């Protein structure tokens, strides 16, 4: 049995690495997010989440999602709201705080260290990529411009306006110029 010691040590090491990399939170803990109070001197940004294009392409929508609970009739998931900007915050940080505070479901993939160098937002409010046709998914624009890179690499400044919009045509229907849209 002495020979098995290195094997068991290796297994324990792997398990320890896995456990160390896992961060488990209860539901209440996850949603209990601290949002800083807005004071006159604090820097703020405005965030909104909309899915108007889904209403225009309602026929393509996944039948399981055809309900007002998943797609609001006015297309507004989060109306424009001001949030306090912390030092070095990216678009993803603000979005993460906002959805936690408002208890909106959100799923993302990867981290800043992923091969793409950014987080990818797969779904917000149960609306996922490909939920409404093969070219659908979430995009973001800051001050009316669609950045060319991921949301966790966009560092925000005071007073910027972030809009998360759902597209059904790879960005053309929401006006992403570099994707062939019409501009704003």
């Amino acid at each position, binding site marked *: 049995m002495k020979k098995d010691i290195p094997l068991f040590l290796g297994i324990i090491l792997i398990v320890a690495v896995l456990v160390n990399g896992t961060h488990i*939170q209860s539901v209440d803990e996850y949603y209990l997010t601290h949002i800083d109070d807005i004071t006159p001197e604090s820097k703020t940004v405005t965030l909104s989440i909309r899915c108007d294009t889904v209403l225009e392409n309602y026929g393509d929508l996944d039948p399981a999602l055809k309900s007002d609970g998943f797609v609001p009739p006015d297309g507004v998931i989060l109306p424009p709201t001001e949030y306090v900007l912390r030092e070095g915050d990216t678009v993803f940080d603000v979005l993460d705080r906002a959805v936690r505070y408002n208890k909106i*479901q959100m799923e993302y993939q990867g981290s800043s260290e992923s091969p793409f160098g950014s987080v990818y937002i797969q779904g917000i409010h149960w609306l996922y990529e490909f939920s409404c046709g093969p070219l659908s998914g979430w995009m973001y624009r800051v001050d009316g411009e669609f950045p060319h890179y991921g949301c966790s690499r966009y560092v925000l400044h005071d007073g910027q306006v972030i809009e998360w919009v759902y597209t059904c045509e790879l960005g053309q229907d929401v006006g992403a110029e570099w994707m062939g849209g019409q501009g704003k």
Partner: protein
Amino acid sequence: MRAFAKLHPAVNLVYFLCVLSVCMFVPHPVLEAEALVGGALFCAATGKRGNIKGELLFYIPMFFIAAAVNPLFSHNGVTPLFFLNGNPVTLEALLYGVSMAAALVGALLWCKAYSGVMTSDKHLYLFGRLWPKLSLVLSSALRFIPVFLRQSRRVGRAQKAMGLYSGKSLTDRIKNKGRVLSSMVLWSLENAVEVSAAMRARGYGCGRKRTSFSLFRMRAGDKVWLSLCLALYAAVLAAALTGDLNFSFYPKIGEISLSAAALLGYAAFGALSLLPFAAEIKEAVQWRYCVSKI
């Protein structure tokens, strides 16, 4: 206890295609449960008694692993249980994983039943005319698996007899398996060359049309089986085409439909997946009855 395997090969093949196609392409929890139960009962009725413990030790952990993997990668669903690295682990994803695991294990059990029932002579009989090369390749490939296992056991015993790695520790056993495997890779290459040489020596592929002999005849019972199987399959397909057998887990678990079409589908597929087991039971009862009269 080989009532089902004694049927005409075409009946066996059609039956397996019907069950496996529903099991794989109609993802509905009720149908998956029926396929799982039917497959498990049939495998238990026809399999060797001593093997059952080993099989359970393989299929049950497999079921749980397959069920647990889905919620780790899919975070959709309205009922979060807890949060893992900032992504929700939801009840819906967990149940979807259970359903997929049932489909997976069910399909595996039916494939196991298939390999037990459809022996290589049946394959050759069915496809020998249509695709002679394919059926030959398939039957020799399927035969390779038991031959490989037998040979690897033989190599393992020989190594143990020579006193190599005969210790009881886990490391020794893993090392032993590795040694056996590396010798088996060489052996299987050599075996393939030998088999092809032997087949050439016996005149395979020399251009003459080969004849074959088989004793399969379509009897009245086979025709009843075939028509019953196709009728049940058509009922399941009709139920699936009405859309009542569509079931969605995301974002909210759908309801198990209780419409007439859906009930017909459940009943028809339940009957279809229990047919071979029922045939085995009938055969066993008949046998007991005959024995008791002697």
